């Protein structure tokens, strides 16, 4: 009787978080369960394919260090929820993976994290060896709390070259060209832009770029720091108006909310030629590479988001995930060992291994090894974009604290599909907790 069990479970869920703290002892992943042992540091990461590089790095570290590092992994979708339940308990790691910005703000506020000033004072390489626009993401209350790890993920405008050629459209450089392209493509019977609206965060990407281009990066910086008035500004309304115009022009078709990126729906639209563009994080490349290698080889185009005439944002600005970060818990018993471990994040070995699995590290020595990446042209293009970007805005859902995510997703989805207007969107964004 599964259904009976479900009622029980429902009653339990609220209290389950307590139980979870207990049960996580068993779910800690690899390594022995005696956390906080006297001579180990525990490193907690998001569980996915990149773990093999992280395992290798831990092995490298353990060869020379007296204090041994132990790598724990938590499967992707549950990462944030599980991290939050263990971080203030006995199972807390010494070092953990995060997205910077709002994703670690609650932990900083709770006094759990160690500002990295002392580490950086002892080893300036911890900042100087990384691209500045990326380092900024993990600064909270004016202090650095994270060292970049893994690779950068800017959001790019991908296209199907064949569809564009058939329609006689060139990749748009300006917003007006984008609108014109939408009209032509629609007349040809293709969906101009693929969008996985069912996931909601792909919809959010459109807001991030349009707001940055129209209102400049200052708008969001103010908003996330608690100045709610900016959401009601003229720039904000202009950005919403432009999005409305694009949606009403039929740019995304009519059924985008039934399509998801995560189950391969929207990439399939692009790859099979049913759609011409998709705005997506740089991981789109490897996603498509796996499912449609021929398409990637022959017809996949990529470029930056169009510029907006008269907009306040620099056309070189990027949005997305500047990088992932390692943050350090204040109560770690081995700060020296942790500092040594973090130094590996700008080592040659780290850069080479990350490039080998398709990640693009944001260290200053990355260009030396770009030839060894899976696709040197694509990696070089991305690296140059990130390097010259004056501002690399972290995705809204990560820049705000986790408590804001649901509201943001609902607001962008409802505005896009016409369930709510600009006023409701502005009110929703004004209701968010400040980071």
């Amino acid at each position, binding site marked *: 009787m599964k259904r009976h069990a479900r009622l029980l479970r429902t009653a339990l869920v609220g209290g389950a978080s*307590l139980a979870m703290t207990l049960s996580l002892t068993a779910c800690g992943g690899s390594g022995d369960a005696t956390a906080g042992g006297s001579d180990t540091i525990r490193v907690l990461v998001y569980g996915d394919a990149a773990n093999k590089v992280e395992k290798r790095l831990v092995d490298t570290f353990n060869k020379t260090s007296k204090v041994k590092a132990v790598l724990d992994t938590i499967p992707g979708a549950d990462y944030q929820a599980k991290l*939050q339940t263990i971080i203030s308990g006995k199972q807390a790691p010494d070092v953990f993976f995060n997205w910077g910005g709002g994703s670690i703000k609650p932990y900083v506020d709770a006094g759990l994290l160690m500002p990295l000033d002392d580490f950086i004072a002892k080893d300036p390489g911890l900042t100087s060896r990384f691209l500045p626009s990326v380092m900024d993401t993990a600064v909270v209350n004016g202090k650095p709390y994270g060292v970049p790890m893994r690779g950068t993920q800017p959001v790019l405008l991908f296209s199907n070259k064949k569809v564009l050629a058939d329609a006689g459209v060139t990749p748009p450089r300006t917003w007006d060209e984008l609108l014109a392209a939408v009209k032509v493509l629609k007349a040809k019977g293709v969906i101009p832009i693929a969008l996985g609206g069912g996931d909601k965060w792909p919809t959010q990407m459109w807001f991030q770029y349009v707001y940055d281009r129209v209102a400049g990066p200052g708008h969001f910086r103010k908003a996330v720091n608690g100045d709610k008035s900016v959401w009601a500004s003229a720039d904000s309304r202009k950005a919403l108006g432009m999005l409305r115009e694009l949606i009403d022009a039929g740019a995304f078709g009519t059924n985008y*909310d039934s399509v998801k990126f995560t189950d391969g729906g929207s990439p399939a639209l692009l790859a099979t030629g049913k759609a011409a563009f998709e705005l997506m994080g740089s991981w789109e490349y490897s996603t498509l590479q796996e499912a449609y290698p021929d398409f990637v080889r022959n017809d996949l185009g990529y470029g930056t988001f169009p510029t907006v005439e008269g907009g306040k944002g620099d056309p070189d600005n990027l949005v997305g995930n500047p990088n992932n970060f390692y943050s350090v818990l204040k109560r770690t018993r081995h700060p020296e060992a942790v500092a040594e471990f973090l130094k590996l994040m700008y080592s040659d070995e780290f850069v080479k291994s990350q490039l080998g699995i398709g990640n693009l590290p944001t260290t200053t020595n990355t260009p030396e090894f770009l030839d060894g990446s899976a696709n040197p042209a694509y990696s070089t293009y991305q690296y140059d974009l990130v390097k010259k970007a004056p501002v690399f805005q972290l995705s809204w859902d990560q820049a705000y604290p986790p408590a804001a995510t649901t509201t943001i997703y609902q607001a962008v989805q409802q505005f896009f599909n016409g369930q709510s207007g600009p006023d409701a969107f502005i009110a929703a964004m004004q209701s968010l907790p400040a980071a």
Partner: protein
Amino acid sequence: MTTATPAATAVDGAAKTGRPGRRGRPATGVGRPGFAWAAPAAVFFGLFALVPLVLVVVLSFARWNGLGSPEFAGLENWSRLLDDPVMVKSLWLSLLLTVLGVVVQTPISILLGVWAAGRQRNRAVLSAVYFVPLLLSITAVSVLWRAVLDPNFGIPSQARWLFGDGNLLGTQAGALGVLVFVSTWQFTPLHTLIYQGAARAVPEVLYQAAQIDGAGRVRQFFHITLPQLRNTIVTSMILMVVGGLTTFDTILILTQGGPGTDTTNSAYYMYQKAFKSFDFGAASAIALLLVLVATLVSLILVRLTGYDRMRSTMEGV
């Protein structure tokens, strides 16, 4: 006899006591099983149901985001929830999904169950086939239907005349329809099985008598089978109500509460509050509200149907 009593009779038989009308302990000393026998189950129930329930009550009066210790917040969570339009809507959605589930699943299950209660071999085979969806995990089922209903690559793209642009999960009506359809697809087999068992327990003599009186199959169904299934219908409906009110997995995978908050039922809203927004106080309050509503609905159902009086449907009793 109701479907529930044979088991009870067996137990009573083993204890050689407890027949209706015979009161008090028998002199033989072969008593009922002592309370000690229930102890293991009672301990488990206490540990995994009662203790968490008490904790949830405590948390519903606290502010807690999972970090540090909960702070007492008085009635804050409750007053916030009662003013929250999404919360009110989520309760309505829970009830709507439940009612739709019952209304759609009950007739199908009864018809299939009664049909499957026949004794021909092909029916047994077909019944086994019907049962397959229940064996699949609800997650797998949801993922499967999501793919099948994809607007650009699934069935809707081949049947535009029926599905239009295929934006099933992008509209409230469409999304609710898909949710009801998927849970019907998965859970009808369970209820069919229950009805099959109950229909087989209807005494053959009733049909024989009806036939002699010249009643056709339709009349037999409405005048013998349905009344005889009354208690089974209540049992099955209570299961559906409990399942409907706590629908969660299908929503998590198929709609994530969207579009907007159009399919955010209370169970999903609770999950969102707890594990997306890390607002465990509010989530606990929702959980309690859901427990209250579920209890209330079950009680009403039991009262309305007379199930509490446990009237036997056996002829002549």
